[in-house]
């Protein structure tokens, strides 16, 4: 018995081999390829040319656009999402509204890609439902704005707001009604309650959600690709160009350098997120 147990535990790591092997091959290897080949040329000799490419003006502006787009859509998504989360949280905890809202938000937060782009083209595109309706009222919605950064901000809000609701709702639930009652008993006003209790308590959760939304928008590709069929306004679209167009001599690994740049930006956001989470977890549970 003891000997079979001993060999069993010595050999038990074999059970994890298929999973670890798969993950190593299809997750860790591709990721390390991105990192390593960012610093290599087509013949796998070390070079800094790809990374230097990141300093070219149009790449810098693509990163600027990506960060601006992600930041703006994160702020809009976080503010509006927090409002919607408040509406949901102040309802009946087991009510229909809450059940429907969380289910719908769960779906919409994952909803993106080509379908979302089409939905907005069908709404505010040249022949869109809303465009045609407002045309009769003398308002002109149509224009190229949908296919540029302002359009992306609008379209991204469609999945950012629901994500915010999902992330922020538990934090709002953690705010006890008793705290408000305590403020009222002590003669405090609503403003004082917000200023000294609710806002300070919710700030870490809000900031954390903001960072999560930023990373979410920064990583999004499909919706932008379906709306903007050419060019590289934002970094993911630059990567598309690098992967699909004719590869220029000496530029074979530029896509990897762009991807590395994205990883770094997301890593900073996630690091800050972890820091904020650690601070906020104390009160709200």
């Amino acid at each position, binding site marked *: 018995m003891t000997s079979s147990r001993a060999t069993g*535990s010595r050999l*038990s790591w074999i*059970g994890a081999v298929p*999973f670890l092997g*798969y*993950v190593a*091959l*299809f*997750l860790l290897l*591709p*990721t*390390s*390829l991105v990192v390593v080949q960012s610093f290599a040329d087509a013949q796998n000799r070390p070079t800094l040319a790809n990374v230097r490419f990141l300093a070219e003006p149009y790449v810098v502006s693509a990163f600027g656009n990506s960060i601006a787009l992600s930041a703006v859509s994160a702020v809009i998504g976080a503010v*509006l999402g927090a409002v919607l989360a408040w509406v949901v*949280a*102040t*309802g009946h905890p087991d009510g229909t*509204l809450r059940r429907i809202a969380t289910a*719908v938000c769960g*779906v*919409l937060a*994952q*909803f*993106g*890609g*080509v*379908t*979302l782009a*089409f*939905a907005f083209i*069908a*709404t505010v595109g040249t022949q869109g*439902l*809303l465009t045609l309706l407002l045309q009769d009222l003398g308002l002109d919605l149509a224009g190229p704005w949908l296919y540029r950064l302002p359009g992306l901000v609008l379209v991204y809000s*469609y999945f950012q*707001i629901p994500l915010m609701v999902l992330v922020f709702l538990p934090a*709002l639930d953690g*705010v006890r009604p008793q705290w*408000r009652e305590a403020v*009222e008993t002590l*003669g405090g*006003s*609503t*403003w004082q309650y*917000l200023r000294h209790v609710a806002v300070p308590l919710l700030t870490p959760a809000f900031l954390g959600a903001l960072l999560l939304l930023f990373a979410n928008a*920064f*990583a999004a590709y*499909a919706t932008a*690709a*379906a709306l903007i069929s050419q060019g590289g306004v934002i970094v*993911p679209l630059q*990567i*598309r160009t690098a*992967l699909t167009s004719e590869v220029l001599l000496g530029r074979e690994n530029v896509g990897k350098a*762009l*991807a590395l740049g*994205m*990883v770094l930006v*997301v890593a900073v956001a*996630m690091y800050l997120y972890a820091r904020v989470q650690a601070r906020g977890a104390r009160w709200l549970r």
Partner: protein
Amino acid sequence: MTAPPHLGPAATSLATAPERTGAGLHARRLRRRKMVRGVLLAAFAAFFGIPLLALVEFSTRERGAGGGRTLEAWKAIPQYPGLPEAIVASLQLAALTSVGALFLLVPTMVWVRLRLPRLSRLVEFLCLLPLTIPAIVLVVGWAPLYLWINYFTPRTYQSTPLVLTFAYVVLVLPYAYRTLDSGLSAIDVRTLSEAARSLGASWATVLLRVIAPNLGPAILNAALLSVALVLGEFTVASLLNYVNVQVAMNAIGQAEARVAVAVAAGALMSVFLLLFLLSFVGRGPRRVRSTR
């Protein structure tokens, strides 16, 4: 609970007559809150509802400026060149991916719980890693791998999109892991497997006939999530030059917008239906437990 910032006179008089004004303040605040909530809900419902309505509306428009309704675009879906194949490919990918992810994860997670608890943090970290690496970054890394996969695929299967399964399993890992992990936490894996083992069951029997049935809802949940994710996947397929339903849809969008929008609406409805089913699957056992 928070309330909209409003500083009515009632709020300031709270201190002078707490009993009566307190009650009035409460009623007024509730009424006001109800109204604000109603307006906000309507606005959000419009923002999220109108684009979905527009999808359906656009796909049923009659050609030309007549303003009539027709199902022409929907009926064109099965005949559109390349489209049925792409739909079938996406469905096959969805099935392969969910089965693949389950076969990879369930035995590993059970095994780690029983024999290798030291590895649990590592497995969790690896499974959640794809959440932090953007899919577009992974595609860049997969591109050279897929050159190799292509090289080793027999010529007759050269352009089949089914090889995307390898990548898709990685993409669904975080979601499948989370649902399975919460499922496994709810049952006593150790006792169940020790009981079965002491009665002479093999490890395969333990997994398939003892653990799996107990994990039923979690497994179904993970599978449905994977299906929903794969049906909507565009990034990886399009950049690695494989055709799935989303890639086909995007291409058709340039030529025949109404058909493309009809496919989008159809795909969306099936995903909504799936996730709607899922919300029942997820709730089933919990409700049973709470009434007990």
